[in-house]
């Protein structure tokens, strides 16, 4: 069973997808309502950490129990890539709350 995509501590896990582009890896991350200035995507080996603050606190108040009383303030996640990448991304692009990050694969 997968873990919920939110925490009662106020963070949300974003949706993402990974594409292998041969010598590069492309990651698309859906970060709706994120404050673009706070988006951070950091790679180390095969691990990539993602974080971003929401522009305003969000509550799903019509959802009974569970997460309905949680005030969400940020996105946070750590993902594993299929291969190691160079730490600094080749390109970072944000459009309509979707972030595209391209990393160069580490040469073996």
């Amino acid at each position, binding site marked *: 069973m997968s873990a*919920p995509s939110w925490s009662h501590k106020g963070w949300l896990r974003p*949706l993402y997808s990974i594409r292998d582009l041969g010598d590069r890896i492309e990651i*698309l991350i*859906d970060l*709706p309502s994120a404050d673009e200035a706070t988006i951070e995507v950091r790679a180390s080996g095969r691990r990539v950490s993602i974080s971003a603050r929401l522009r305003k606190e969000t509550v799903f108040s019509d959802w009974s129990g569970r997460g309905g009383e949680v005030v*969400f303030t940020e996105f946070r996640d750590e993902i594993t890539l299929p291969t190691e990448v160079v730490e600094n991304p080749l390109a970072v*692009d944000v*459009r309509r*709350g979707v972030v595209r990050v391209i990393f160069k694969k580490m040469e073996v």
Partner: protein
Amino acid sequence: MFFREEYIGEFKFVEYSPYRLAHPGYAIVALPDAGLVGVIGASHMIKVLGMEEVGGADSPLLPPVTIVSKGEIRLPIRIFAKNNILLIYSEIALPPQAMYGFSRALIDYVERKGSEHLILMTGLAVPHRFEIESLRTYYIPTTKEADEAAKESGAQRFENGFLVGPYALLLKEAVRARMNTLMVATESFLEFPDPEASARNLQVIGKVIGVEIDVKELLEKAEVIRLRARDAMKSVMKNLEQMRKEYEYAPPLHI
């Protein structure tokens, strides 16, 4: 309390109150697929048109799910109606093994409720969606009448390619049943909820059925919808992967 229940194959259709569609009857189907385009659009349509929940459907082939909505127990497949429009809506991804029986049962049921046209509301996953500003909408008709109905809608006809998922089966069953059916598919993300595509899709469907659907609020609330829909989208992606949705990206060898 159910007013009426009816079994069609392995599906049970229940009604909470008596209803029948006015003429010309349209049944719109919104099931989880690419970008949740149909589901997000349908949820908005229910709100702006003030549609009433008139029934639902369930089956032992579906996951054991109950929906609690405003304190009422509802079935996983929900049915809403207003005047000449029937909306069949599910946020729960239907397992592939349930889709064959469901397609047949659904067409049988909506025809008997006075539906003369079936509209399939969905997204058309495109791998470069991130770069697209202006979304194209395509249509696939199963009859000449359905083809005529779409001509002034602003959508273009989808001529060649693969379709994978719940709507692929519904189209095949609609052809068998000789039902006027139109699939309306707007370019969208596959893996992320795409309310912008839903808004465009609704505008086209509105033209087909002759009802103006205001999408202003849908576009204003797009970010909140994307936040809320993350878990539903994750679950649908597992289902679509099982159905080999990636076939859709392949060009067919023979046209």
